[in-house]
């Protein structure tokens, strides 16, 4: 039975996980902004924090999405080469 299952998982799983994190990031950012705008006092510091955060957040999301979009996500997750690579790293740390 199990031999008929397709285990062709690709590393694209991590790309999808990253996109889920981006969605969570945007959702929580909007909730935080809602609180700051609704309950926060009108102060220069609060506005500066919100603007700096917005600029940094947009840049980070844009930069990460464009960087990750250029990579090949079709490789198999169970490709033995990366396990060998990890083994190399851990053995060199000993």
């Amino acid at each position: 039975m199990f031999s008929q299952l397709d285990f062709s998982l690709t590393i694209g799983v991590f790309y999808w996980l990253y996109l889920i994190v981006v969605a969570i990031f945007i959702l929580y950012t909007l909730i935080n902004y809602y609180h700051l705008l609704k309950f926060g006092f009108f102060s220069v510091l609060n506005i500066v924090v919100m603007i700096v955060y917005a600029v940094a957040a947009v840049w980070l999301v844009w930069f990460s999405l464009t960087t990750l979009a250029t990579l090949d996500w079709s490789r198999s997750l169970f490709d033995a080469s990366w396990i060998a690579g990890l083994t190399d790293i851990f053995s060199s740390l000993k």
Partner: protein
Amino acid sequence: MINLNAIPNKRPQELVLVHLWPHPLVFIGIFLSYLALFVIPPIIYAFINFVTPGAFDNLVIMPVLLALMFAYYLLIMVFMLTVWMDNYLDVDTLTNERLILRTQKGLFNRTVSDIELYRIQNVSVNQKGLLKTIFNYGDVQVETAGKDPSFTLASISNPVRISRLIQRLDETVKNNRHAPPGQI
């Protein structure tokens, strides 16, 4: 955003005297601790790359680690914003009639309460530690006759001055309450 003079259920003769946020050093400390978290991935990368040159050239490891690293940075950033929001919205306001306490705990827990100044029984200052002494900030503990017997104004600037101000206002409010109506 709220105007600095806006308080919940404002009374006709009520004046906002001071808003009490945690000392800026508290915010700087939190910011620096999160900044340290930002530096961790480059340090790990540089270390592994130094020990095993070319370890990240693998076409499977590299995209996965990049995705994890970006996800890590996004989560750190949103935690930073949440901590800022959490602390910035923890603001207490002293008026000439009452003390308004606003507490934000996380994203979905916000409490606003107020204490009449005439209920205050005792005010004490707790300013322990080198940083608190040098930068003049600390806790002011206020004991009241209400159902919540005591509360703390945590890590506020000039705690001694604020405690004296609360005591002076408390005396004024109590004198006015006991004075005949014509003398107020």
